[in-house]
């Protein structure tokens, strides 16, 4: 899920960059978009740093936390 959300944010960022790169932008609107973009960048960076996937085992039709080492 985490990656999907992250990707959604990334595609919004892509959108913002495209608008900002366009011709004839109102500076006020651009600044607003830019602020939104920078906020998203910060969020994404945080997500990338902090989100940690889990290792689970599927036993008896249920996902359970995997405890102990694999080897």
């Amino acid at each position: 899920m985490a990656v999907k959300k992250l990707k959604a944010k990334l595609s919004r960022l892509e959108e913002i960059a495209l608008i900002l790169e366009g011709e004839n932008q109102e500076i006020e609107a651009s600044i607003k978009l830019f602020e939104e973009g920078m906020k998203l960048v910060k969020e994404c960076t945080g997500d990338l740093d902090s989100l940690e996937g889990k290792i689970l085992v599927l036993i008896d039709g249920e996902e359970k936390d995997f405890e102990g080492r694999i080897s």
Partner: protein
Amino acid sequence: MKNPRILSVTEVNQFLKTLLESNSLLKNLVIQGELSNVKRAASGHLYFSLKDPASKIDCVMFKNAAMGIKFVPKEGLKVTLRGSLGVYPPSGQYQITVRSMEPQGQGDLYQAYLALKGDLEKKGYFDPEHKKKLPVTISRVGIVTSPTGAAVEDMISIIKRRNPMMDIVLYPSLVQGEAAAANIIAGIKAFNALKTVDVIIIGRGGGSIEDLWAFNDENLARIIFESELPIVSAVGHEIDFTIADFVADLRAPTPSGAAELVAEETRNLIQSLDQVKNRMIQAMKIQINQNREVLFRLNKDLLRFHPRQRIDEIRISLDVVQEKMLRSMKVMIKDNRQQLKHLEARLDAVNPTNVLKRGYVLVTDGKGIPIGTVKDLAPDQSLSLRFKDGLVSVRIESIKEN
């Protein structure tokens, strides 16, 4: 010669049965030939003929024995059978009761593998149009493999390294031996029942063809084919191909390869994040500069039309005018001064005091007005006489007009 004993049909068949079935050679028959007329009964028993170019012999393989066959027994396949010859009394036919069947030659398993492969290929199991695409974004991966061994360790560490955000759900399974195929099937079914993962990896590390045999199971092939979740097959090494590899939606050369296929590098995400950030900053800079340029231009325009500019111009022309005025004033003053001197000289020439110096006297009335005629005078009137060196007041005694 005694009359021969008359036997019943049943007695003859029974006799033959006893005779043949007691023969030690026929009891442990190893026989080679080509399969023909293969039929699987609903009961699970397998009926077929074994033939060579000259003759044929009927065979039966009962369900228990038939279940041990590790390939698809099909028409024309050359096999080696082990079994015993027996007689079926109701029909009087002899047949081989087969205990085991192996494909002929050295690569027996390989032959069986080829046979099943050909069979499934014909059924369309490998057709590209049945291959499911891996989702663009994979957040959770299910792995059906042995919980022990290098393969699972490699996969987990590669996934964790490439995408630490990914969830890994492990279905611990046997990957070789009799129960392995059924185990793997159960794993695929369990993941399909839950649908909590985006993709399933089935696989194991390298080994001999016998070790990998579970992945050539026909039932497993069917379950892979029917799976709603996409399946990546990763069995053995690059050079090992199994039926599972062909049916799966994607074949990875190794378990590590499978891990790389499903776990996209978050480094790429970080990179695209950086890129998009820089693009935004760049675009913003450009916009700000553009605005700054416009501002600069407008400011210049404004300055050009600033009133001070006019004032300065006026001030300058004022100076010019002033200068001009001053200059002409000076000229005028100089001219006047000259004229004054001139007049002074002329005036000096007619100055009456000069006349007085020569002995004349100027007569004025009491108010200082010169008297030029006697007609204005009356006796007793006071007059003032100006000499060159003073004034004298006199009174008129008498007037005598000429």
